[in-house]
């Protein structure tokens, strides 16, 4: 079956602009996670959803970052007033339920802020 997909694959934007990054989880997976991976580093947790609600958003760096999952499937990570330091690969993962220990990752979106 289809894995986790993320669009766009690459996004280049200018400082101060607004961007949206999309994640399509594996069909039927109720838990969805966002991570940010800076160059040469390991991924860092941002937020995760159980269904439509954000169960833990403790990793969001500041209030410029926001994520939604209105129908419990597709999720959008939104970044306002982008800064050069936001440049990273944004990874999405899903699992069949929050208590599952196996997360399936998408290929990520590489965001470059000029």
């Amino acid at each position, binding site marked *: 079956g289809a894995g986790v997909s993320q669009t766009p694959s690459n996004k280049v934007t200018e400082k101060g602009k607004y961007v949206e990054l999309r994640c399509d989880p594996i069909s039927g997976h109720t838990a969805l996670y966002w991570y940010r991976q800076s160059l040469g580093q390991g991924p860092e947790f941002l937020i995760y959803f159980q269904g439509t609600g954000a169960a833990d958003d403790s990793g969001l760096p500041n209030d410029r970052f926001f994520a939604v999952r209105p129908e419990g499937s597709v999720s959008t990570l939104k970044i306002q007033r982008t800064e050069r330091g936001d440049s990273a690969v944004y990874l999405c993962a899903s699992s069949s339920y929050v208590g599952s*220990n196996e997360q399936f990752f998408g290929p990520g979106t590489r965001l470059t802020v000029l």
Partner: protein
Amino acid sequence: AQTVTQSQPEMSVQEAETVTLSCTYDTSENNYYLFWYKQPPSRQMILVIRQEAYKQQNATENRFSVNFQKAAKSFSLKISDSQLGDTAMYFCAFMPANAGGTSYGKLTFGQGTILTVHP
């Protein structure tokens, strides 16, 4: 809070040989899962192997095995008969869990080790 440390930024090995990647972690959790993930240049994070802290026996998956030392908080990955396709960044990761094995979801990753397999 948990921390995961990978002290080897880069490793290299000849094809068909064995290599060991190191990982240490710090936690106050009683139960948890440990993982090794592989990330090739395609960026896709692929699960290599996992270990539950309550299980004494070291996990193995074909050519991949771990040496889990709970008291020392050490979790190394051994790759036997290395293949060119093993070339990738490898991440050690931690996930807390309750006594029944239900995980608490979010992963904490180490900084990664770049492994290069030479022909």
